[in-house]
């Protein structure tokens, strides 16, 4: 017989006795992340729609491709570049899409629930403010980069298969696409770029936007952007310098911390120049992450104080 279950708590008021046997902390987190996708369907619909449109464009291009590739004047290197171009472009386009989606998501994340008063419903459930803020922060920082990666890889595979089908249909070799393009490295660089730049390097931007969305009573977009512009303007007038603007610019362009913006081109030639080690020990990364942590901690605190607006 299980004697453990018969143990009667000494005091019914003992909080540990009231709390039921360990509900793991990850469960509310998991459901809160899922909830975000229910509410913000644009998180996946926007990149999927862009991918579908891109595919249409790619098909039209591929129809013309055989004729152009028959051009004897085309150098093999150029030919390879010609085949490769749309794949890189697909990745860039999807990254741009999810970047925009992430910005709009972050600016609304802690604002929308106060605007529609649903925060009172969320707060009536045993989920801590920390769990909610972390689940919202995880969308732009972790989930969107991974989702972008997954959709990009799927899109590139579909492009490759369709492209090959068209080439085969016109009686040409598909060997170049399948063997000459470094698929594995391209995917790896894409994943690294998404995690390192879009996730970690841009983290303070998202942290800042989440904080503003939790603080502003209205127009979070203006509150998130205008103060930054004001700092740039005041610095320029007062000291005739542009350090803040330069700092923002370098943060946005990916900085010089091992993966510059050039890496977005995912040139295989760049692979040796990528140095994750250098990136992960760069102070810029860690200063950014520390700022993100501060912004998120402030957001948690704000959510505790704030009710509906």
């Amino acid at each position, binding site marked *: 017989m299980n004697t453990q279950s018969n143990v009667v708590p000494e005091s*019914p*008021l*003992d*909080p540990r006795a*009231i*709390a*039921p046997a360990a*509900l793991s902390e990850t*469960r*509310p987190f*998991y*459901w*809160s992340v*899922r*909830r975000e996708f*229910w*509410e913000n369907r644009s998180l996946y619909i926007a990149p999927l729609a862009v991918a579908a449109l891109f595919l249409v464009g790619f098909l039209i291009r591929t129809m013309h491709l055989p004729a152009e590739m028959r051009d004897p004047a085309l150098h093999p290197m150029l030919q390879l570049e010609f085949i490769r171009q749309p794949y890189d472009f697909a990745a860039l386009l999807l990254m741009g899409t999810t970047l925009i989606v992430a910005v709009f998501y972050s600016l609304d994340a802690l604002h929308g*629930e106060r605007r*529609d*008063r*649903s*925060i*009172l*419903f969320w*707060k*009536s*459930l*045993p*989920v*801590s*403010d920390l*769990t909610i803020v972390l689940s919202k922060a995880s969308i732009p920082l972790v989930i969107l980069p991974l989702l972008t990666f997954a959709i990009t890889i799927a899109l590139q595979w579909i492009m490759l298969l369709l492209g090959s089908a068209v080439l085969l249909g016109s009686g040409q070799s598909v060997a170049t696409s399948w063997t000459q393009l470094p698929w594995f490295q391209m995917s790896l660089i894409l994943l690294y770029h998404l995690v390192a730049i879009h996730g970690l390097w841009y983290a303070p931007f998202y942290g800042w936007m989440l904080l503003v969305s939790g603080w502003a009573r209205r127009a979070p977009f203006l509150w998130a952007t205008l103060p930054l512009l004001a700092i740039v303007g005041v610095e320029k007038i007062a000291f005739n310098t542009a350090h803040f603007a330069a700092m923002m610019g370098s943060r946005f362009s990916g900085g010089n911390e091992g993966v510059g913006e050039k890496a977005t081109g995912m040139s295989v030639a760049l692979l040796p120049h990528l140095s994750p080690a250098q990136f992960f020990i760069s102070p810029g990364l860690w200063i950014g992450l520390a700022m993100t942590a501060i912004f998120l901690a402030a957001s948690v605190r704000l959510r*505790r*104080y704030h*009710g*509906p607006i």
Partner: protein
Amino acid sequence: MTVIEARGVSKAFGKTIALDGVNLHLEEGRILGLIGPNGAGKSTALNAILGLIEYQGQLRVLGRDPWTERDQLMRDVSFIADVAVLPRWMRVSQALDYVAGVHPRFDRAKAESFLAQTDIRRASKVRELSKGMVTQLHLALVMAIDAKLLVLDEPTLGLDLLYRKQFYDSLLTDYFDRSRTIVVTTHQVEDVQNVLTDLMFINRGQIVLSCSMEDFESRYLEVTVHPERVDAAWALKPIHERQALGRSILLFDRVANQKLDRQQLAALGAVRTPTIADLFVAMLGDKPGDKPNQAGEARANYEGAAR
């Protein structure tokens, strides 16, 4: 077991004092009605109990400090703030999924069976439901949570009579038992007169009346006085008078006037237990020191506010 224990709880918003040293003691198994005019501090009191706002003074709910332990407390407390808070984009099935996902004491089958008695479809979004249906959905979610304390802040605001009656009926028959406790604020006091076990009037951040409904019924009596007995009736020091159809209706407090008995009053006219609304108007409608206000007008204002 003590569910709520408040000692000198105060809260000010800027210069406005919303709660002014409120003391409250609520035992398990009670249904407390917190009644007060608009801006009296009802919602502030509930928000403090629910850990939604900071406050001064001592407050323990189920032995916890609500402000610092809200997420833990919410395992044992559920609340309906008012009808508009369920997120409008959410589907009914998603609401069930989410609460089942995060709440260790949520019984999904129970919620499903409540919903089966309504016209609410699982695939509907909250925005597609009528106001009454949103409340039914919220009530289904809340009643399926095995909570110790349920807090209802104007839960039936904007609902028609049928929905309101149904709301309190299901609450009493399907939810309430002696191990649960309910705190409710409402302007529709006639709906809760027979639901409450305890009554509390709050005005200007202070508790002005606190009694059980048994005490209420034995303490207050209302007499529709025969025209020729009016002078005799006034000699017994009623606490309030109102006029209806040319007759004088006097309200007596048997604690303030210990000698009064029911027989004595019956000689003056028809005796009955006043409604909560009657007492509310008597106590808060035209008090000296309050703004000059006729009782009838106060009552009209009060009922107007309830609509």
